């Protein structure tokens, strides 16, 4: 009888569930994909149901359930904040404590009630869950571990060493000093949403002045953080308000940066862009110092990263060049959502001392739908479609449609784990077309003009088009590394080349996703360049699609031309009876 362990992460943001079968991750998904609420933080009942259904088991078959943090330690931190900030913390006290009483301190009861699970729940320290989520599914037997996020219980940054089944976190930096929260503070200052739009700031940064010597905003922003030569740091808390109020920054921060918080409707000025560049530069400064110090302390060539800051793909692409580390691993869902895997893996490998079997080699851990299920959905909703005979026809038809500058919804196989669409729930289009950014933004994405689109390239072609580390690191498969596009190709793939000449590429390996791999190669035969634009398959402000119904609804609510779902082809213009305007309801 196999041993099943369920990991759960919830009640902060991006709740998720992951299921391990004899130590192998067999299913994992975020609740938002089922509930259709972006960054849903509620108890992940739908994600759990999916995990159990995928293995055809019931709750009774679960040996253990592991939770991704220690709630009482987090409450201790919250109360300490209120005590330290009295009387300014009254508003947050009144707004935050009810959720602690109703759900955050009642995890065992909620698990018992919602799942009818009779045994106890194991509680794993938040940063241990982060570290485990990366190391225990990594290909390394020994590695240095660094976790950097907003905040867990008390800890915001840790480093340590992991070998075999053991993870030892040696040092920490504690709240309120947090690199993640500094990034979020600047995100808020620039008029974007916290815990959601940090990646937009990363995309905006190259439009600013990336020269430390001449960027005046960088010099100003350096005043909010005291950085030591070993990478440890503390925030100058006069500039922040997140430790006692329901906002990120104080009036002093605005004064220092020379202006008030940007209104989201206000045009982005050069000053805003320079501020985005400044926070990216400071993040890179701190991370490089930390990693150099960790490399020296641990004497390891391998590095695993976890926590929200590990999603900073711009910096990730520089790690192997700027630090002594030779190999890098980051799991596809590096932020809090990914800790459900970590909690479960920590129980299996570190507590039960079970041998590590195979590393995580792909991100396709979510639900899939058979052609029969898709057909039933199409027929029951009287949707007009055509059917492709085999994989070869599917690949060649789709490649031709993309080459003809159609915007394609691509719904194939199991849904991706993590925030990026990786060729299972993707919108694909032609990167060689200069106007494709405009077309995609006009038809579907409606997103900020400064944000680049991502290229998907077969791993064996990556070094030809991108100045990647060699060999190409595995996290590139999960769109976690940004590399320069090689000079000679920049003008040929303008739609995926960012203003600084970089691209946030996804490398695709045949063994991970053969159909997607073949599609990219086939497109290469038509265009001469085997690269596709890959952007997430979603309506603005909504999570990535999960089911055929979500995908069809998304196509009919946007300007996607055609949906390739399983072996079926659905044209938007053939089904205009179901058309609607998603932009009327969209919110970021």
């Amino acid at each position, binding site marked *: 009888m196999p041993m099943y362990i369920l990991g759960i992460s919830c009640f902060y943001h991006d709740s998720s569930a992951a299921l391990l079968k004899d130590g192998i991750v067999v299913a994992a998904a975020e609740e938002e994909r089922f509930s259709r609420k972006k960054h849903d933080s509620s108890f992940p009942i739908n994600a759990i149901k999916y995990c159990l259904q995928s293995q055809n088991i019931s709750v009774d078959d679960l040996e253990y359930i592991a939770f991704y943090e220690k709630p009482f330690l987090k409450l201790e931190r919250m109360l300490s904040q209120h005590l330290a900030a009295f009387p300014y913390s009254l508003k947050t006290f*009144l707004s935050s404590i009810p959720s602690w009483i109703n759900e955050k301190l009642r995890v065992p009861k909620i698990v018992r009630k919602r799942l009818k699970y009779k045994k106890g729940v194991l509680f794993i320290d938040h940063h241990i869950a982060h570290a485990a989520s990366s190391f225990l599914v990594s290909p390394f037997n020994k590695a240095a571990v660094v976790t950097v996020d907003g905040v867990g219980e008390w*800890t915001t940054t840790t480093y340590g060493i992991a070998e075999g089944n053991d993870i*030892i976190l040696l040092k920490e930096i504690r709240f309120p000093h947090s690199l993640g929260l500094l990034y979020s503070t600047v995100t808020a200052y620039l008029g974007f949403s916290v815990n959601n739009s940090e990646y937009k700031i990363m995309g905006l940064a190259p439009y600013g002045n990336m020269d430390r010597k001449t960027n005046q905003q960088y010099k100003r922003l350096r005043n909010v953080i005291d950085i030591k030569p070993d990478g440890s740091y503390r925030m100058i*808390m006069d500039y922040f308000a997140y430790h006692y109020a329901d906002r990120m920054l104080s009036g002093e921060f605005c004064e220092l940066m020379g202006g008030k918080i940007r209104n989201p409707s206000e045009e982005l000025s050069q000053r805003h862009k320079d501020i985005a560049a400044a926070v990216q530069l400071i993040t890179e400064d701190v991370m490089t110092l930390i990693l150099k110090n960790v490399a020296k302390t641990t004497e390891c060539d391998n590095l695993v990263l976890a926590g929200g800051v590990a999603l900073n793909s711009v910096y990730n692409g520089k790690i192997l060049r700027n630090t002594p580390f030779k190999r890098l691993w980051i799991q596809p869902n590096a932020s809090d959502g990914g800790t459900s895997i970590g909690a479960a893996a920590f129980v299996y490998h570190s507590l039960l001392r079970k041998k590590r079997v195979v590393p995580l080699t792909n991100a396709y851990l979510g639900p899939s739908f058979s052609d029969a299920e898709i057909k039933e959905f199409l027929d029951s909703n009287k949707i007009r479609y055509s059917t492709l005979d085999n994989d070869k026809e599917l690949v060649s038809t789709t490649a031709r449609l993309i080459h003809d500058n159609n915007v394609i919804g691509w719904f194939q196989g199991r849904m991706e784990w993590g925030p990026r669409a990786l060729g299972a729930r993707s919108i694909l289009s032609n990167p060689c077309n200069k106007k494709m950014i405009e077309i995609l933004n006009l038809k579907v994405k409606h997103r900020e003009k400064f944000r680049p689109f991502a290229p998907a390239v077969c791993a064996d072609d990556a070094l030809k088009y991108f100045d990647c580390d060699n060999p190409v690191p595995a996290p590139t498969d999960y769109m976690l590394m940004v590399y320069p596009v090689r000079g000679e190709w920049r003008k040929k793939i303008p739609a995926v080349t960012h203003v600084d000449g970089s691209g946030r590429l996804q490398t695709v390996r045949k063994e991970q996703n053969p159909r997607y791999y073949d599609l990219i190669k086939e497109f290469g035969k038509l265009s001469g360049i085997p690269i596709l634009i890959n952007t997430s398959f979603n309506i603005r402000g909504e999570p990535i699609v999960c089911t055929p119904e979500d995908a069809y609804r998304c196509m009919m609510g946007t300007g996607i031309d055609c949906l390739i779902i399983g072996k079926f082809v659905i044209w938007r213009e053939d089904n205009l009876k179901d058309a609607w305007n998603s932009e009327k309801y969209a919110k970021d």
Partner: protein
Amino acid sequence: MNIRNTAKQIFSGIKSGMREFGQCLSAIVNSTLLLLVYIVAVGPTSLIARLVRKRFVEIEVSDDVKSYWSDLNLENKKFDEYYRQF
């Protein structure tokens, strides 16, 4: 049938109204009780802590300190201790 439907609608309306009323009431009671806790417990504790210079959150920065890293004592716990929420 019509009478039954109308009655159903009226009852569901009353039910949702009662639910909203209950939620409002619980929000008011919660806020009042929490306000009381904040004034009676958090306030005095915070003031006493300040008098004895107890720091709940470390925010000081110093040029004299070489490093802000602190030891993380996540010692190996017994399996059963992981059932604790602290």
